[in-house]
């Protein structure tokens, strides 16, 4: 990887260009099982039009009633992003006609959003703490999702599925603070991690519970912002990075050919890896935003806000710093806190009594390796934190060696048996019995008289050979310290 601290530049014919990126992330409030303004359910993948209330279908005379849990989750999310919580906010109507929008307007928040300015700290390179950067959050507002048109059900007609209609979304709007695909990717990953820690959104990008509108413009370093394009509904970190990369290059080429970037909405084609224009500013809707007269302003009282704050879990940055304070390397701490499930699993491991540094090394090296091989997530890890703690304790107190520990772990993964039981039943306990070790050493020195002679004439590096042979003869169960000590006694 290139030096992450060096600025990302696109080399054009006329010199270097800087990319400016802002993201609008739509995150479904999956913590609520009901919609933002109706009691309808929100389960993913249900049969079309089975999760639709009279309100969602915009039947005549139906009225929205805010779902408190959705508001609560958005407030908690705002707090996790260190953002201003607006105790007075209001819902506005965004008016436009489309068949997936029964009301003819989306209830959103333009003028007075629930959450104001905040920030997210990212590591552009997660291995390198010197690449930390703060990305500003402009606002978070709460709004309704629309339904979905289905064009493949009938030769001449389109069908509409209103299941998603009215589902609660948080729109998290960043400042145009990102300057490279890597920064955009790191920001989205970090945001996703925070939402998952908070629990407001499950961050499932495949199921559409999180998607990003990617705003990209280019400029010569030091110039004013250029005209931006907005690529809608990008649904993976990889695609967001691809959009930035493609869009920036396209704009540079366009500008260097003497053209102009049109302020327009674009769509990403993941198969071809390109973006294409959806609609230009000229056919942009006039959304005629105005305060929704069916809803009163949203006023939060102190008790509600305090409850939200008190319910926040430890967040990734705080957890990482705590782990580092326990002697865990910055890299391990960063890896262990990137995903909420990993962090929870690791915390449980510590609670079960594991020594932090040893445990971190083991999880990152052994456990992740094993999960990778098995194609499993930490959520369905076959070994529980308590079982892992037992294994690590056997190593720490000298009952088994690190080498044996690997064997024991493999058996644990296969059989689900406990580490202690495995060591006991298979006789893997480490021995410090000098009689047995001495006996093996005698045999090895006798069988390798030539190497003994070489060693004695000064080839010191052969010492390791004798250690290895002894350990092998002892089937790895000999205490390495004792082996070393006895060998020195015999050889020196």
């Amino acid at each position, binding site marked *: 990887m290139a030096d992450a601290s060096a600025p990302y530049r696109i080399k054009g014919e006329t010199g270097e260009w800087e990319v400016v990126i802002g993201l609008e992330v739509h995150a479904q409030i999956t913590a609520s099982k009901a919609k933002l303004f109706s009691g309808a359910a929100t389960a993913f993948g249900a049969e079309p039009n089975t999760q639709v209330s009279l309100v969602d279908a915009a*039947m005549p005379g139906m009225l929205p009633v805010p779902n408190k849990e959705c508001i609560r989750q958005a407030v908690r999310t705002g707090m996790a992003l260190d953002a201003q919580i607006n105790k007075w906010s209001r819902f506005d109507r965004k008016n436009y006609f489309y068949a997936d929008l029964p009301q*003819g307007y989306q209830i959103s928040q333009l003028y007075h959003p629930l959450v104001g300015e905040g920030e997210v700290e990212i590591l552009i390179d997660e291995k390198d703490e010197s690449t930390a950067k703060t990305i500003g959050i402009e606002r978070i507002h709460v709004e309704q999702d629309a339904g979905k048109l289905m064009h493949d059900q009938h030769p001449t007609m389109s069908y509409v599925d209103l299941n998603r209609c009215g589902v609660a979304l948080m729109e998290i709007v960043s400042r145009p603070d990102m300057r490279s695909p890597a920064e955009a990717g790191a920001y989205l990953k970090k945001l996703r991690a925070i939402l998952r820690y908070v629990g407001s959104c499950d961050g499932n990008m495949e199921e559409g519970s999180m998607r990003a509108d990617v705003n990209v413009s280019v400029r010569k370093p030091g110039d004013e912002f250029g005209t931006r394009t907005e690529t809608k509904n990008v649904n993976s970190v990889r695609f967001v990075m691809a959009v930035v990369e493609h869009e920036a290059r396209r704009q540079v080429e366009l500008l260097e050919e003497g053209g102009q970037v049109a302020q327009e909405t674009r769509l990403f084609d993941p198969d071809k890896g390109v973006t294409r224009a959806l609609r230009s500013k000229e056919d942009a809707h006039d959304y005629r935003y105005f305060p929704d007269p069916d809803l009163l302003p949203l006023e939060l009282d102190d008790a509600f806000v305090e409850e939200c704050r008190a319910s926040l879990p430890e967040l990734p940055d705080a957890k990482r710093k705590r782990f580092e304070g326990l002697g865990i390397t910055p890299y391990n701490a960063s890896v262990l806190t990137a995903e909420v499930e990993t962090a929870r699993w690791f915390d449980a491991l510590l609670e079960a009594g594991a020594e932090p540094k040893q445990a971190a090394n083991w999880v990152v090296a052994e456990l992740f390796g094993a999960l990778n091989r098995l194609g499993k997530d930490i959520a369905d890890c076959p070994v529980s934190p308590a079982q892992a703690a037992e294994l690590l304790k056997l190593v720490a107190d000298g009952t088994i060696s690190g080498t044996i520990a690997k064997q024991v772990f493999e058996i644990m993964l296969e059989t689900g048996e406990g580490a202690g039981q495995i060591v006991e039943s298979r006789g893997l306990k480490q021995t410090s019995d000098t009689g047995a070790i001495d006996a093996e050493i005698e045999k090895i020195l006798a069988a390798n008289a030539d190497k003994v002679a070489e060693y004695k004439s000064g080839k010191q590096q052969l010492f390791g050979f004798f250690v290895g042979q002894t350990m092998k003869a002892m089937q790895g169960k000999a205490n390495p310290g004792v082996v070393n000590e006895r060998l020195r006694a015999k050889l020196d």
Partner: protein
Amino acid sequence: MTDLTAKTIAELRDGFRARDFTAREIAESYNAAVAASKALNAYTVETPDDALAAAEAADSGKSTGPLAGIPLGIKDLFATKGVDTTAGSHILQGFKPVYESTVTANLRKAGAGMLGKLNMDEFAMGSSNETSTYGPVLSPWRRRDSNVGLTPGGSSGGSAAAVAARIAPGVTGTDTGGSIRQPAAFTGICGIKPTYGRCSRWGIVSFASSLDQAGPMAKTVRDCAILLEAMAGFDPKDSTSLDLPVPQWEANLSSNLKGKRVGIPKEYRIDSVPAEINALWDQGIEWLKHAGATPVEISLPHTKYALPTYYIIAPAEASSNLARYDGVRYGLRDVPEGGNLDAMYARTRADGFGAEVKRRIMIGTYVLSAGFYDAYFTKAQRVRGLIKDDFRKAFEHCDVILTPTAPSAAFGIGETTDPLAMYLNDVFAVPASLAGLPAMSVPGGLDGQGLPLGLHLIGNELDEQTVLNAGLAIEERAGFTAKPDKWW
């Protein structure tokens, strides 16, 4: 047998309880009267079986609520389960909701039956009932020695005509900018719009959400109190509903106004208003004085901006509220041959909406559009605040305000063709709507041509009681017993 259709709701209720007559007899009398009233065009749907079923429940003792045995007419703006609900619009023709509005559900819970759905101006936009897709309602009233068809006012024109013609003892109306009070005045009946939020808007087809409010219309002030008690109440399904207990308005009715101050707003003296109307206003002041009240002159300085403000805010909200009528899910769908989605929207809405509704959608779309929003909508919201403030200050000096209800008596069908002249009908009614205050029209007398004129009472927030009490004081003194000669 006495003519049950001549009785008030209070008399029907008490007579039924005293077993002077059965609920079935009440329902049958009204069903027959409704069936014989086609010439009025007041009902869009007749539901005699519904009225009979409620009567059956009352007679058998299954229903014992305060309105047991009372059949009512329901404005077509209220969703009624399984019964056509069209808001007087072609775009909703044939629409049968699977749900019942909170207000009508409350009335049913109180024991009321339904005689049918009442004609109205399309989406409640109009002051003469001429914008209905079903054609205009004819007022049962006629000018002396004239056969010219008159409007009952609007938008609750079918509702008003039904009470005046005695084809319903009481009805529901809705009032966005005078739609209960102006038709009540035109037809010589009582009608009250309560404080915004008293009646749930859930299941009432929206016109302008921040102004729409349901209320009752009936022969007497007492009947209005009885009906309003049954209609009102907190509804968690309407975020703008007031979470307050419903007062016992009927039990607390009293025409003794001793100690009450009646505000007379000087800005409501308009030269163009006929002398008869200003004379009735003066008479109204005398009646209230006679009841013990003290008149005080008050000022509502922003009154002249109320109508323009209303005609920005109401159309703005309507333009958005009516976007849901798009041909996609229910109601009318017109698609030109080979047309796409946009063509379907255009054709459906062009065919489905009448001229007045289209006019207001266009005005509303315009005042909300980029570049005009601040000049119109934002400014109108600010003026609305000033108008509310005017009332707040005025109620520091008075307990209830008396004005005329409308600037004229009923006019002839087709006589008023200029939309702006039509909008002027609500000049006295609109300020209270913008301020969300309770307001009522009670009949005061007849004009020179023998047509009813109304007096208008505006109360402070939540103080329907003083409005009703002042209304009762006028009712007792006006002795308004005139009724239209039956010609239909």
